[in-house]
């Protein structure tokens, strides 16, 4: 049961990553590699500030701002200097590696007994129920604070998902989505598409950095290598969510990105729990994701065939 709670919590934390990837990949149609640097940027800013004694909420917000700056930089390189989107992302990601080492001053910062956002969440358990004991659930005992951590993460992700929906439905957000579809048309309406791109990528990486900041606080350390492979994770989650939810309107896509991330983590958890030979883990994960992606299509085909 700890595994399920842990998988869902990490899935929700990484859902912010997939929301960020959703903006760059689905709205602007390119795989923004800045993500791999900004996850770590968020983690390293949050970790070094918290260890230096700043309040965790402030540290997390500064991490978010740092991600926004990194993403905007990619946007500026892409739009003002006319460099290919993929390459702009690679440039900023590469630079961020050194920046992250400077931010932390070393390659890895562990939280010893510092108070993090997750300490607050754990303490809520004691405040609400007067105890931090374990509770029985489906035949196994779970520390109550793990459940509160899960609940608080769920609330944060739901609020941010809602805010993102409202933002993208606003005039500004609609213009931003249109920029991804048809730049010329949007420019003809008198909208500055460069600004849209820069703000959009900033927003995307702000969410990704926030995901990194939360992940570091959840797992108890920030490491300069933690961003490796994150873009692929995000892309997989966005696509899994999209395929499973099967609807293309904005609200569904956002919910899909969040749930896709959780489902992806749960699939990895199943692979782990089956006790695979350690070297086959990634193979099995890839296989599971493949099945998750083709299953809805196969079912649809079958249903279609039954109709007269």
């Amino acid at each position: 049961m700890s595994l399920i709670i842990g998988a869902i919590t990490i899935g929700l934390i990484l859902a912010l990553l997939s929301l960020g990837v959703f903006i760059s990949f689905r709205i602007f149609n390119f795989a923004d590699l800045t993500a791999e640097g900004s996850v770590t940027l968020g983690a390293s800013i949050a970790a070094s500030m918290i260890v230096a004694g700043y309040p965790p909420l402030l540290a997390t917000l500064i991490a978010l701002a740092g991600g926004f700056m990194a993403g905007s930089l990619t946007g500026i390189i892409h739009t003002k200097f006319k460099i290919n989107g993929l390459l702009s992302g690679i440039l900023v990601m590469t630079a961020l590696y050194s920046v992250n080492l400077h931010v932390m001053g070393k390659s890895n910062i562990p939280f010893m007994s510092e108070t993090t956002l997750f300490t607050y969440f754990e303490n809520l358990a004691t405040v609400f129920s007067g105890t931090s004991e374990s509770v029985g659930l489906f035949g196994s005992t779970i520390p109550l604070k793990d459940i509160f951590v899960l609940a608080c993460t769920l609330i944060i992700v739901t609020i941010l998902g809602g805010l993102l929906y409202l933002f993208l439905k606003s005039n500004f957000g609609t213009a931003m989505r249109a920029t991804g579809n048809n730049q010329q048309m949007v420019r003809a309406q008198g909208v500055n598409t460069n600004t849209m791109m820069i703000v959009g990528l900033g927003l995307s990486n702000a969410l990704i950095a926030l995901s990194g900041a939360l992940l570091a606080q959840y797992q108890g350390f920030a490491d300069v290598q933690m961003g490796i492979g994150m873009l692929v994770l995000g892309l997989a989650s966005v696509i899994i969510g999209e395929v499973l939810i099967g609807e293309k309107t904005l609200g569904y896509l956002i919910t899909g990105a969040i749930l896709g991330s959780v489902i992806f983590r749960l699939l990895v958890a199943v692979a782990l729990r089956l006790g695979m030979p350690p070297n086959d883990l990634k193979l099995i994960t890839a296989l599971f994701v493949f099945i998750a992606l083709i299953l809805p299509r196969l079912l649809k085909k079958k249903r279609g065939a039954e109709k007269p």
Partner: protein
Amino acid sequence: MKFSSAKSTKKAAWPFIRVLLILAAIAAAILVINKFANQPNGIKKRFVLIQFNDSPLSDLSRQGIIDGLTSIGLVSKKDYELSVSNAQGDITTLNLMLDAAVTDRPDLVFITSTPTLQAAVKKIRDIPVVFTVVADPILAGAGASFEKHLTNMTGISTLGDYNGMVGWVKTIMPKARVIGTLYTPSEANSVKNINELKKYAEHAGLTLIAVPVFSSQEITDATLSLTSRKPDVICQVIDNLTSSSSGTIIKIAREQKIPVFGFVSDQAKKGAVLVVSRDYHQAGADAVKLAKKILDGESPSKIPFEFVSRTEILLNPEAAAFFKISLPASLSGRSDITIVK
């Protein structure tokens, strides 16, 4: 909210419900697997080994743990069951592996490498943990000192024998003034290692040149950059990146006529003149010795962290001859030195 008014509410909610059902189905699958996994199968003890990535260090220590369990008289599949998991370098998977261990509730968890220990410090509260192949467990958050540490943890530190290495440089190459190494700034253990080497080197009047390297494809350039600064000898510190690429480093240094001293035993075969190696196989076996104490009923909180018990000296006379290093006569016939051809 135009789209929801266009359709009936029931229809609009269906995709969400479908995905939530899938979610529930996967969670249920895990619960079912749990139920079967936890059934008693006659095996007395269940151990879990969690590793962060694939490297020569993780392979050697894993084998050391398996051999160690045999040497304390336990028979695999009868007295114990060891399930090994390796996150293959992915930190989010590493977290899930620790969750899986907490769910599984084995009798004891073995872990190797620093990131795994850091994640375990946060996740595992009430299962005994024995770590190994961690350069500095204090830095990783496992305790305040080797004696005073987290109550459910103990283990083996594999910090290299830098004092010993500097001594060997002085013995074999008394004229050496400058030593060099590559290091990986992104690995906490690597930074710790060069600081230790620097401390002992400066104490002995040697200067250390450390050249940073970030990925395996930069190894060649970084080695050339190091050799162009003409150190008398390269003492390559240990980290995951350079220990996987040590063949390249040694080959290039050889072309540039600079001898290499190393800290990982396989480097001697690859052409290093001398290797002062913490024995990583032994590090696994030592971890099992601590585990044995815990299985016999001692509390992990009472068992201090230890350094790995055996340091190997390996000497490659062919490489020494190539660099025209004359080995002192006193070395021949010493039982603690292994000659590698």
